[in-house]
């Protein structure tokens, strides 16, 4: 067997740790043993939010130089949220390397560094679901809706949740 790269070794270890001790509401792992660089995740909508009862699938894509560079995370199907682009890609600080700051507001300590982990990313995404950050809007329509008509925002998300549950 060819020696595993640093990225593969690290991904495998993170997977083992997540499988052994999964954080509540989060399931994540590589799609196959042959491709450690693509992970499927299932995130439970946080309670007391309109996302409650939803199970949201997302895909993590890791670069070859992980953990020096961060992965990207995309909800599929896309999810209505101020910090999620219309195509489902998540825009939060922990997924941005220091130095790249699309919004010119992120502090380096919030951003990706190899001392972060997949678990920390997924936990950040969970808290992002519970508490949108309108300062760094990725989806302008969702931002507006969230700010101006919270009831409609909540209604649309609940409808999405019901649809994904097949109700």
């Amino acid at each position, binding site marked *: 067997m060819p020696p595993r*790269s640093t990225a593969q070794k690290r991904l495998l270890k993170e997977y083992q740790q997540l499988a052994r001790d999964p954080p509540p509401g989060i399931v994540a792992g590589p799609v196959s043993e042959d491709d450690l660089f693509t992970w499927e995740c299932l995130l439970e909508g946080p309670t007391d939010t309109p996302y409650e009862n939803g199970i949201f699938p997302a895909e993590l894509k890791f670069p070859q130089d992980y953990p*020096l560079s961060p992965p990207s995370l995309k909800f599929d199907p896309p999810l209505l949220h101020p910090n999620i682009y219309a195509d489902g890609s998540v825009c939060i600080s922990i997924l941005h390397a220091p130095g790249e700051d699309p919004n010119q507001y992120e502090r380096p300590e919030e951003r990706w560094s*190899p001392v972060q982990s997949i678990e920390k990313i997924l936990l950040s995404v969970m808290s992002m679901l519970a508490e949108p950050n309108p300062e760094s809007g990725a989806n302008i329509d969702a931002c507006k809706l969230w700010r101006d008509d919270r009831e409609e925002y909540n209604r649309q998300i609940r409808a999405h949740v019901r649809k994904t549950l097949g109700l």
Partner: protein
Amino acid sequence: MDDHRAVRTLYSGSSDLFNMNEATIEDTIPKDRPLIAPLAPMGVLRAEYENGNQVFVQQIDWLVNNGYKGIRRTRGDGDCFYRSLAFAYVERIMNSEDVDLNVMRAISTLEATPQMLLEVGFQELVFEDFLDIFKDLITRIVQPEPGRSRLTGRVLFDTFNNAEESNSIVMYLRLLTSAQIRLAPEDFAPFLFHPEIGEPMETVSFCENFVEAVGKEADHVQMTALTRALKINVNVAYLDGHARSDGVVTVDFVKFDNATEPEEPISLLYRPGHYDILDSKDQEDLTSLDPLW
């Protein structure tokens, strides 16, 4: 302690070092250099300043006259201090007289470092692979791994130009530097300032923003911490383009003396915003750079 004095000197008297013409450096240190370049004679650097500030030229001549004949340049990506130091650290062990002893000493120092990182709260998972890469490289000086050659100048050069290995080593040194600063807050806290706005900073915030973050250049605090953690001596020559008030041109060295055994220091060259490696030789042993090693 010398290193403390150096830190104090820095923040009290030499602010002009930091206010120098950054444009000069921007022009001469493009970001697309190799991570680590082959050794070159100082004349190459001198030629770049010949039409500019003549004090720089005289300082380069001073270095040559004082035995620093060569320069090994590193990419100006903000990681240059860590990368220069790591390269020079391994190279010096490789070229030392008692290789076995020096490899053993380095490995034993490095093997004591995970405890420091764990103590300040880094998970083993996030740093062990980086440390393994660094330790394996040093071990290969005396003990080739199956299927991999013994460490030669060529292999060392290639390893430091391989982004994955090179950046992993840089990352480990950043985490080690951070751990050292966090473990001795009383030594470092008075010197933790935001490099751009000059405001005092909390230890953890300083470490997260200006030590652990890739691409953030090291200053005296980081250099003091890292030389202490690695137990090494490092001399940094400041090429600042300033003559003394009496018109005499020399080069000031800032010394970080943290070796526990007597040893020659590693010599680095600092120009505002950038570090390279100084060498007493002015060219590479070309056989060691022969791809047919």
